[in-house]
């Protein structure tokens, strides 16, 4: 070993060089903005296309959008949806879902059901926090789904816009399908959006 090398070794040992070298990384990170954030005190901003919990939507006048057509049930690859439909006795010809269940523990968040829905009644929201002590409460029923839809209405609409399913509120009633309106008498004039 040469004298120069030995001197360098002794100097490094005396000045704790390795420690300073290692601390360099640490000190450099003190000047960075943090990568992590303080969940749950801080929340991440979620994109509109995010596929979170499913919710059922209503029209602006409060009427349920869902017509109980069972198409989401068919589209679902994990068979987590069950729709029981019936006729609305007060409005002849109007079919609606008398019961609607989504087993969210089985859901794979593929969004097929939203895509299948002919009336854009289903939407995915930005809600993802629904952990619970009781697994049974993860079988979302119709009421729960409408609650989610109401609370996250804006998110749901944004999801639909982002996925090109619905353009704006005016158009929300114009779909690929023309549903029969509840006709009570034969002289009734057709609704505005169909005339």
């Amino acid at each position, binding site marked *: 070993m040469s004298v120069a090398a030995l001197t360098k070794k002794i100097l490094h040992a005396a000045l704790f060089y390795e420690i300073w070298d290692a601390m360099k990384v640490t000190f450099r990170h003190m000047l960075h903005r943090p990568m992590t954030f303080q969940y749950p005190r801080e929340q991440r901003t979620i994109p509109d296309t995010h596929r979170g919990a499913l919710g059922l939507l209503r029209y602006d006048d409060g009427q349920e959008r869902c017509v109980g057509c069972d198409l989401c049930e068919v589209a679902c690859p994990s068979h987590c949806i069950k729709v029981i439909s019936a006729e609305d006795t007060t409005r002849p010809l109007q079919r609606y879902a008398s019961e609607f269940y989504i087993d969210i523990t089985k859901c794979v968040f593929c969004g097929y059901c939203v895509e299948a829905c002919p009336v854009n009644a289903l939407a995915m929201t930005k809600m993802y926090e629904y952990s619970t002590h009781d697994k049974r409460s993860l079988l979302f029923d119709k009421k729960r789904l409408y609650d989610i839809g109401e609370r996250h209405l804006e998110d749901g609409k944004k999801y639909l816009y982002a996925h090109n399913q619905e353009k704006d509120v005016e158009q929300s009633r114009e779909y690929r*399908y023309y549903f029969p309106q509840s006709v009570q008498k034969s002289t009734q004039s057709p609704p505005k959006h169909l005339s």
Partner: protein
Amino acid sequence: MGLKPATNPDVEAATIELSIDGKSVTAKDGVSLYDVIAMTGKIIPAMCYHYTFDPFGSCGMCLVMQEGKKAPVRSCTAKAAAGMVIRTEGEDLFLARKKAVEKHLSVHPLDCPVCDADGHCELQDMAFQHGVTNLANAKQKFIPEDTRSPVLDFNMNRCIACAECINVCKDVLMIDALQFMKKGGFNQVVAKGDLPLNCEFCGDCLAVCPVGAITNKFSKYLYKPWQIKKTTTTCNYCGDGCQMYLETKDEEVVRVTSPLSWKNKWGDRSETAKGHGGLCVRGRFGFEYLDSQDRLTQPLVREGGQLVRKPWLETMHLLVDRLTEIKSKYGADAIGGLVTARCTNEELYLFQKLMRAGVGTNNIDSSARYGHMNFVLASKHAVGLGRMPNDWEDLTKAKAIILIGSNITETNPLTAVRVKEAVRVYKAQVVTLDSAITNIAKLASHPFLIKPGTEGMVIDGLVKAVIDQDLVDEETVGKHPKAFEALKSAVANVSLEQASVLTGLPVAAFKEIAAIFAESPRSIVLCAEGIVRRPNGYQNVLKVMDLAWITGKLGRAGCGVNTVTEEPNEQGAVDMGAAPEFLPGQARFDDPGARERFATAWDISLPPVGSGAHLIEILKRCKGGQIKALYILGENPLATLPASMEVRAALERLELLVVQDPFLTDTGKLAHFVLPACTYAEKDGTFTNLEGRVLRVRQAMDPLGESVPDWHILTALANAMGCQWEYQSANDIQAEIMKLLPGYYNLGQPRKIAPVPDQYLSNGYTAEVKGRYQPISPSGEHTRPFSLLMGQLLAHSGKMSTQAPGLIKIAPNTGKLRMNIRDMERLGLQDGAKVRVTSDRGSLQLGVQPDQSIAPGTCFFPEHFNEPPVKDLMTVLVDTTTGVPSFKQIWVSVEPA
């Protein structure tokens, strides 16, 4: 008849040749071009076409190019002609068809997601097939839904005016309840006169509707077609044995559909002679009892005067203990069994085997005893064949049909459709002889109204008229001159004039009917409830046999004497030996050869010859105390037989009454043990229909609650009583039946056995016929003026259908006596007025209602309902030969109360 093949079976149409897509094809002259193309296997879309009726030509889809014509032609309404050159494919045709679809879609609401037909819609298929994605000038109809009918909803927004519903109703079923009506600028299908639909509710219009315009109220908006499991099975209501699809979702029966459907539209018109695949109101809308809340789901055991729920194991232990105790104490003949003909063949076989081999008694009978047994025994006696000699095809292609006492549109609606087809397509002469104005009489060429209870005298008169007019077939009669002489001398004292006075049928009519029957090449007699369920049924069937014999119709192809059965498996009950006089295969119980065979097969010694009792005898012995234990499988004698039979007293005297039924019946309420059985939807097996066809019953769903199939209960019971039965499924029982009765199943096609009367005519006929034609005594003097009849309604079958809410909605128990309007006027009665009906057995107060089908001098009450207990006014006459009880007619007086 338009463009369909020449449907006269006697005339062969000429053969022509034409070219389809470059291939030479031979066809019958006069056939629709569409049929010719369909026969080659090519399928051209057509939405308004169905093979069961004439082409209508409204949809414009079946376009083909014919050489020499500029525009495409509609192939359905075009007649195939010799030398035609036809092209069925090509871009131009595709576009023309696409245009037709667009035309239909432009006035069709695009509401597929909420439509019940979604996934089962021809318009949807066509739009997809032709790639219709964009509709210019779409126009919406705004028509309110017609929901006035109890079973069908008419949503005319979806109608494409294909008229399939109208055509099937008018052309096939001859009911003609629907029509087109221009309303709100659109042609709509409405019930006749735009009134609430009031028809036979067979639902065939629903079956053929290619879109969702006619919807089923029972399954409306419930499920999409792809969510439902479809099981092909046999209807459980009458002896027609219609095939149907039971559509279920888990434990719920959603609806019933028929083989007749817009999906099943290609076929040959001549195939409908074997049945058009439709259903009747009972089959299509009477399914709700299957998953009813009232079904028994647990065994019940009587404890301290009350029926208490018990687990199966405990129940079976108790039951077997009681049964063996009674057997050892009083002997095997103290036990009897009654079985319903709504069970499968396998279960009927097991039941009689349990009774004969397990218990060791011949006290066994089935509900075939209520009437069908009269026909079976008479026919077996005379011609050696214990079932109908003719099938539906014979009936359709007959030239003359005599319906005596057969209200077949009500009792066996699909057999009635065959008669209607005989009238409509094959131009048959139909003679109806009935004491009611039946629906089939309205279509018949020779409808005759006779006085109630005189069916037998009418036959006397007909035999006499044949002999008087010398219409006898010399060849057949020449073979048995002695028998004919005996018959001649027997009818010598029958006078047509007197018969005419008693029956109300003019002498000329007797002669005309006799001539029609004798002179037609294919003549069929149908004697149903008016013969077999009335007094002297056995003798009357034999008289009809005489009539058929002397006119040479017995044993000739396409001719014969037939009956219809009320319950699905009455024929099977007889064939499986669920009767004291028969072993399986209709072998006589006293036939030593057959006894030997079954004793070896079952490894037992059969009960002695001469032992055994039929239904009435069993009840009598119950009352007399000889029978201590009665095992009733599905039967309900308490609710069926009049009070004068004292069934309640007989059953109450029993030490052990076991009732096995899907429902807690009136008889069940008296029982010591009630075992919950399955309905036909929950088990496998077979039914033998009235033609003798063996039809499969398939399991559509799991047994409800703890109910168990009948064969399973019977097997368990037999094993607990010491038999060694190893049946794991209905198939195992079938295998045993196949071994013992080779050829019985025969892939569902009964063997054609020509009825041969020779044996009977040369032995014992002369002695028997002497007493058959008693000179008619003037017994027309009745102290009571009205004839009260009990019979079936179209929407009901036995007591079972009253458990189906849908059928009750269609035909509720009005609790009123049905009378002719003139009689009501004469008595000064309004609709709903109370009357007192008095018979020799007692009197009853009830309301009246007018009914068009009731003849003057008669009144009617449906046999399905016991509220008020009209059946208790009846007296029971038991046939001395066959033991068949007849209790459907009595003379009453009706007075305003």
